[in-house]
């Protein structure tokens, strides 16, 4: 009986690795060949996938660019101390020295008001207007780089400084930058959510396309089953279709994003140059591009797998 049972089994031939690879390669290219017979339909689906994916990809790359920009602006956690207008240069110097000696301060630099005015005159182009002023309207400023990082000790340092008789105003340069970074974090979270949602949309697009393809090739599926095709043989071309949809959709999405960046890069650069910045937009990095294509390919494969395996399970039952 045992011998009889082994009568019908998976033949060695279809499971030798070479035959297996042969079947895969054949399907891989024949699924591409099928697209070449109806390029319009193929390009429509690919375009829908690409546009859907280019939205989150573009959003993430914009956030990356803003993060780079905020990183370029100021890396130091500087505090500017504006002294009262009647403070003399010598007492400002004494104050600077005493600040320098504090443990919580790593560097204190005095910008005296005459130097500040000269610098302003040099860079602003208001040379004539400044010359008309009777006296220097600028205060002495001490710029300190604190030696501490945590918010609480920073705040107590600021409070302490504000009590000083010569000090008018203490300003954290980082304040607005932190708020920008906070906003960017929210944007990034939102972009991740959008990625998940639109990724799901791509999954549905591929599923639906493959479902239609299954429907139109129903006879072919029946016939191949009749002549002894295994479910995986029948599934394979559709999984590869999903792969190609994902692959080309992903590639096109990255192209769309990078072309858009290049299109808005030159106006951005000229805007940045007005602020004396050499900032220019970065296109998607290679690793970003590859991971987006991989993401898209995975969505394509999953989308088709879900539909085809359900379809075959229904046929077998």
């Amino acid at each position, binding site marked *: 009986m045992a011998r009889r049972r082994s009568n*019908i089994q998976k033949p060695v031939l*279809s499971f030798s690795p070479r*035959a297996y690879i042969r079947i895969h390669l054949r399907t891989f290219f024949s699924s591409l060949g099928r697209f070449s017979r109806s390029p319009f339909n193929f390009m429509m689906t690919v375009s829908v996938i690409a546009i859907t994916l280019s939205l989150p990809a573009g959003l993430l790359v914009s956030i990356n660019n803003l993060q780079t920009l905020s990183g370029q602006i100021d890396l130091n956690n500087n505090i500017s101390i504006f002294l009262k207008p009647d403070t003399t240069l010598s007492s400002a110097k004494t104050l600077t020295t005493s600040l320098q000696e504090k443990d919580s301060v790593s560097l204190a630099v005095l910008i005296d008001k005459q130097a500040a005015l000269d610098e302003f005159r040099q860079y602003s182009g208001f040379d004539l207007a400044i010359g008309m002023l009777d006296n220097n309207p600028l205060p002495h400023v001490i710029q300190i780089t604190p030696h501490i990082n945590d918010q609480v000790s920073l705040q107590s340092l600021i409070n302490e400084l504000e009590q000083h008789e010569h000090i008018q105003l203490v300003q954290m340069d980082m304040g607005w930058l932190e708020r920008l970074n906070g906003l960017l974090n929210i944007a990034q979270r939102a972009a991740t959510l959008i990625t998940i949602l639109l990724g799901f949309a791509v999954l549905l697009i591929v599923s639906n396309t493959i479902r239609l393809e299954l429907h139109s090739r129903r006879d072919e599926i*029946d016939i191949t089953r*009749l*002549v002894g095709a295994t479910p995986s043989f029948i599934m394979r071309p559709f999984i590869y279709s999903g792969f190609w949809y994902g692959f080309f959709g992903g590639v096109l999405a990255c192209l769309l994003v990078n072309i858009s960046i290049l299109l808005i890069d030159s106006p951005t650069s000229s805007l940045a140059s007005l602020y004396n910045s050499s900032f220019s937009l970065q296109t998607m990095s290679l690793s970003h591009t590859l991971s987006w294509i991989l993401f898209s390919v995975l969505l394509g494969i999953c989308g088709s797998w879900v539909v085809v395996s359900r379809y075959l399970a229904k046929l077998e039952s």
Partner: protein
Amino acid sequence: MLQFINVSKRYPGGSEALKNVSFEIQQGEMAFLTGHSGAGKSTLLKLIAVLERSTHGQVMLDSQNIGRIPQRLVPYARRKIGMIFQDHRLLHDHTVFDNVALPLIISGHQQHEIKRRVRAALDKVGLSGKEQRYPITLSGGEQQRIGIARAVVNKPPMILADEPTGNLDPELSAEIMQLFEQFNQVGVTVLIASHDVPLIKQMGYRMLELSQGELVQENG
């Protein structure tokens, strides 16, 4: 080769397509299955191809109960049988060559082996030189020959044909039957379902007659 032991098939909804059918076909035998439409011929063939499973009894192919093999082995069981259909069941957007090559592609043969075997099969059914034509450009008789070539290209030990001459005129029908005889002469077991009794009688092979799901007559 093929043995039915007390086989019954009841479809959901109550209609009983086969009632307690028993018979045996020896290896290398050629036999006909006759009966009016609805007598159960198609059901019987479907049980052999494991397109349906019997409700009772055993369908033994090559001394294995194929009615009870697990679903994952069914494709491999089907590769032991070459099936031919009345409506040919060809892929119309593929060439004659691709149609015939299908069973070989499924079992992962090499390209040169596929070419060799497909040419041989097409040669046997008299379709040499038409490899690159599309089925729709060929006549009904030629399309049926494509179906036969596809059924034999994998060299299965058994051929099943469901009304292979159903749409053909008597002359073409006789030619197709001669083809089956040729395959039988080289040792292939052949079972043909047909209601063309005069033609079958003239050929003088064993006849199994079904009527309302029962085997009513067995002669030959």
